């Protein structure tokens, strides 16, 4: 569960009011699109969830973690409950697909036995079993993003958070990727996807939270991406 309660965020460096008053609840197992124009504060919401930034006021709950009280030392453990995917993939170039996944598991101290079992399963899930020994620059953008999703998934997080995961992909790859995210969601992982792509959102009939200028403008089940109406 992710809960935002009247969250306000002002960036200290330039006093930008990125979020004014954001409230919503995402229950376990939901699939939610977060949409809104550029600069509306979508990435800021993601950064608050991952504790990369701290809120100025309000309250955020992420699973068992109350971010208002979260001590710095606990941040890594919060992040282990989240799988994070970015537009630019962020793979390690000098490690293979398998190496990237293994690295993510080592980092959180998984034993070898678990690593050996988990990686083939996750690679199969994202359809990349054949590419396990390729380096990131040897595979396509869509495949790289699937590796990033596999990495987000490999430590068995409760929630996957994706910030414009299809931003660098053509429409067809984007659609495939969204289908993959839907499949992962159906296996039990909560999904929060930030996107700009109207057609894609309208295709999937999921809950859509729209924000603009730091405020929630609509929050609807089976919603459409349509911020022109605002």
């Amino acid at each position, binding site marked *: 569960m992710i809960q935002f309660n009247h969250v306000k965020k002002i960036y200290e460096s330039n006093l930008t009011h990125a979020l004014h008053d954001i409230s919503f609840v995402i229950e376990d197992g939901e699939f939610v699109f977060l949409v809104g124009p550029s600069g509306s504060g979508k990435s800021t919401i993601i950064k608050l969830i991952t504790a990369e930034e701290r809120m100025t006021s309000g309250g955020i709950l992420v699973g068992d973690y109350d971010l208002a009280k979260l001590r710095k030392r606990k941040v890594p453990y919060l992040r282990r409950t989240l799988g*994070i995917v970015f537009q630019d993939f962020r793979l*390690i170039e000098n490690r293979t697909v398998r190496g990237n996944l293994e690295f993510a598991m080592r980092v959180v*101290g998984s034993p070898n036995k678990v690593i050996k079992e988990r990686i083939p399963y996750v690679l199969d899930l994202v359809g990349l079993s054949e590419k396990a020994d390729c380096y990131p620059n040897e595979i396509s953008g869509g495949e790289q993003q699937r590796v990033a999703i596999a990495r987000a998934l490999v*430590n068995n997080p409760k929630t996957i958070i994706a910030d414009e995961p299809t931003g660098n992909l053509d429409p067809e790859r984007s659609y495939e990727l969204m289908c993959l995210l839907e499949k992962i969601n159906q296996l039990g992982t909560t999904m929060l996807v930030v996107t700009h792509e109207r057609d894609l959102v309208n295709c999937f009939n999921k809950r859509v939270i729209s924000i603009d200028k730091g405020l929630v403008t609509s929050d609807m089940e089976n919603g459409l991406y349509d911020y022109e109406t605002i």
Partner: protein
Amino acid sequence: MRRFNFGYYIKEGFHGAGSHGFMTFAAITIMASCLVIMGSFVLLAMNLEHNLNALMAENEFLAYVDDSYTDEEGAQLGAQIGAIENVASYRYITREEALADYVGEVEDDSLYADLPASVLRGRFSIQVTDISQLPDTISQVRAVEGIAKISAALDVANGFVTLRNVTVVIALIMVVVLVVVSFFIISNAIKLATSGREGEIAIMKMVGATNAFVRWPFVVEGILLGLGSAILATLVQWGVYQLLMQAVNVYSHVQLINIIHFEDLVLPLMVCFGSIGLIVGVLGSLITIRKFLRV
């Protein structure tokens, strides 16, 4: 899940040091040079201290009796000398005995063989209880009627003390300066180790690595640099010391200067170099990677 992944840290640390070999080489060489310069002053100070102690350990001085006294009259002064508080024991040496000693000490004794004993003076050899009160005791002995002259190694000792103090101060300054220099060298090496890996570190943080986990490989690398420098420095120091020792032995025919054998110094030296290397290595890497861990 929270076990300490020792093998991983060591492997990554070595990997880091190896992946930018030239900087590793430069860091170790420069830091070892710093240690050797530092070590040289410390060893010099230790040698001076050693010689000083040897000098002070001779808690004996000579008091010459006035020429006009006969040996019998001179020996009578012993009672007065023995009464001085700090005097542990004394012995009167007659002119004949003094001449015999003197001739015995000189290699080519034929030169002095027919020297008349009367050119020498009778003397007391005096031992003191407390060496630190030597100057006081000397002036008390000098005050005794009939004592003409005192011969003690006091002036030499004073010179040594000054030299030793100066060397210790220089050694301390050197230690501070060179520790700072070494610190920057290590810090730069670690900075190089982290450059190009910011992305990797950010990914580690993103998937939930603890700061300790990110830090350890770099700390291990710092430790490797520090210990590597310490080992190299010990070897070089050994070579330098042997050369200097030979030089000193060649130039001082009289064995005035007593040099400590390197074998007796090598252990404390290694401990010293090792701990400085460790501390500088660990701190240097910790402080350098701190800024990468804020995410």
